[in-house]
């Protein structure tokens, strides 16, 4: 029996994304006085949703989200968790890692394309960074709370309450 559900794995990956975003924000705030610094962003949500969509697609089916035969959530940007369609993450899937987009998925930092607003060529808007940091931390905590609930359910089942 697989103990932790694929959803927990997906949530763990999103924690990776939020951690990297926090690092990018820390880097931007650290460089608030560095001339000509170009700030970095992490936008991982869409690529994670794509990786999840690839993962939830049935084996052998097209992984092209535009293909009507692809069994994906019909709403763009959302992924339906169908446990039957989920590939197992643990055990066998480790050797299968190259085929499992969720296992190889990684968030990335990207340089901002916004024009410089300041005379020293620095592109870090401190206020935006701080508010981004706060909302990032809230989302991180929310994901942690969901993982906690998930394990709470498993704990209840294990104790046959």
């Amino acid at each position: 029996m697989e103990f932790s559900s694929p959803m927990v794995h997906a949530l763990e990956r999103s924690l990776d994304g939020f951690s990297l975003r926090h690092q990018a924000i820390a880097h931007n705030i650290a460089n608030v006085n560095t001339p000509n610094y170009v700030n970095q962003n992490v936008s991982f949500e869409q690529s994670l949703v794509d990786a999840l969509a690839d993962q939830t697609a049935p084996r052998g089916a097209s992984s092209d989200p535009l293909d009507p035969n692809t069994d994906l959530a019909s709403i763009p940007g959302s992924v339906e968790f169908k446990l039957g369609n989920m590939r197992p993450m643990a055990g066998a899937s480790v050797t299968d890692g190259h085929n499992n987009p969720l296992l190889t998925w990684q968030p990335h930092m990207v340089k901002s394309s916004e024009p410089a607003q300041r005379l020293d060529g620095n592109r870090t808007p401190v206020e935006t960074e701080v508010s981004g940091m706060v909302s990032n931390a809230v989302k991180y905590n929310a994901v942690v709370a969901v993982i906690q609930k998930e394990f709470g359910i498993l704990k209840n089942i294990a104790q046959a309450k």
Partner: protein
Amino acid sequence: MSLDNVLDVSASAMSANRFWLERISNNMANANSTHSVAGGPYQREVPVFAEVLANETGGGGGVEATSVMKDPTPFPVVYNPGHPDADARGFVRMPNVNIVNEMVDMIAASRTYEANITVSSAAKNMMNKAMDIAK
């Protein structure tokens, strides 16, 4: 991937800003020094900050004060014939340190330091929250 890197990034920024604050205090201390090691009046020192790359592909390593530059602003000339460094016409070249500018820089340095403390304490809270999963 972990939040440990965030603490390193914020720590690098805190030490860079402490270094800036040291230069500011040195500038203010020498606001009236008409003698320097290099000869002539004291020249204002400005640290140069540079981004540190975490790896060869991208940023995320924080910030570093790479060097200290001398401010090239001309020295103000003050008429003070009683000063031992006064020239034949009674003019003294004073350091190019403006106390008001230094105060403004000091506020910027300490606010930046605080901002980085905020970031690292947010990272700490997130790490503590993640520890709660094990509860």
